[in-house]
C-alpha cells in the first residue's frame, strides 16, 4: 500500500531507490581497502626518501603496479562515496549541494585516472 499523499507522488518526492547500491559500494570498497592499505603501509616503507631509479624499479614490479592500481581505484571510489554522504548531510542549498557533488565526482575521476596513468608510465615506460 502506498502511504504517500497524491501531491508527494505527483512531485516525485521520496526515495530514489538507489540508496542500497551506494551503501553496498561503500562497504565493498572499504573491505577491499583493508588489505590494500595494509599492503601499502608495509610495501611503501622502502620508498621513504628513495631516489627516482629505486621508485621506478619498485613500481615496475608487476605485483606492486597491480596493487597500486587496485588501491587507487578503491581509494578514489570510496572517497567519492564517503564525501557524497558528508555533503548530503551538511550542504542544504540545492545549487551548492549539486555543485559540490559534481565537483567531488570529477575530482575523484581526475585524480584516480591521473594516478593510474602515472603508475603505468613510471612502471612500464621504456
Amino acid at each position, binding site marked *: 500500500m502506498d502511504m504517500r499523499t497524491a501531491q508527494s507522488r505527483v512531485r516525485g518526492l521520496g526515495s530514489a531507490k538507489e540508496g542500497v547500491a551506494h551503501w553496498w559500494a561503500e*562497504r565493498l570498497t*572499504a573491505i577491499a581497502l583493508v588489505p590494500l592499505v595494509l599492503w601499502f*603501509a608495509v610495501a611503501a616503507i622502502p620508498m621513504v626518501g628513495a631516489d627516482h631509479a629505486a621508485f621506478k624499479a619498485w*613500481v615496475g614490479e608487476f605485483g606492486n603496479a597491480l596493487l597500486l592500481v587496485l588501491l587507487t581505484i578503491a581509494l*578514489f571510489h570510496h*572517497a567519492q562515496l564517503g*564525501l557524497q554522504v558528508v555533503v548530503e548531510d551538511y550542504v542544504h542549498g540545492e545549487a551548492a549541494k549539486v555543485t559540490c557533488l559534481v565537483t567531488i565526482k570529477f575530482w575523484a575521476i581526475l585524480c584516480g585516472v591521473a*594516478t593510474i596513468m602515472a603508475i603505468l608510465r613510471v612502471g612500464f615506460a621504456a
Partner: protein
Amino acid sequence: MKSENRPLSPHLGIYRPQLTSVLSILHRMTGVAMVAGALIFTYWITAAAYGPEHFERAQSVLGSWFGRVVLLCLTVSLYYHLCNGIRHLAWDAGLGFALPRLQATGWLVVAATLVLTLITWFAAYAARGGA
C-alpha cells in the same frame, strides 16, 4: 512545502561528549582529512611520471619537517579510519552493539591507531637509517 523550520536532531550542544560520539565524528573527520592524503598520493606518483627532478623535489617536500608533520597527521587519520572502519563493518554484520563491547572496541581502535602509527614511523626512520 517549506521545510527550513523543521526541528533538527540531535542538538549536539546539550550533550556531554562520550567515547562513542567522539569516535563517531572522528571517523568522518579523518575520512575527510584523507582527501589530503589522496592528493599527496597522486602528487607523489605523478611527480615520478614527470621525471627524476620532479620526483626528487616531491621527496624533499614530503621529507621536510612540514611534510613529516602532515604525513604524521595523515598516518594517524589513516589508521584510525581503517581500524574504526573495521568496527563499522562488524556493526554492519550485526556484531558488537552491547554497550560494554562498544566501549571496549572503541578503546581498542584508539590503542591500535597509536601502535600502528608508531610501528610505521619507526620502520620509516629505520629505512632511512635514522635520518
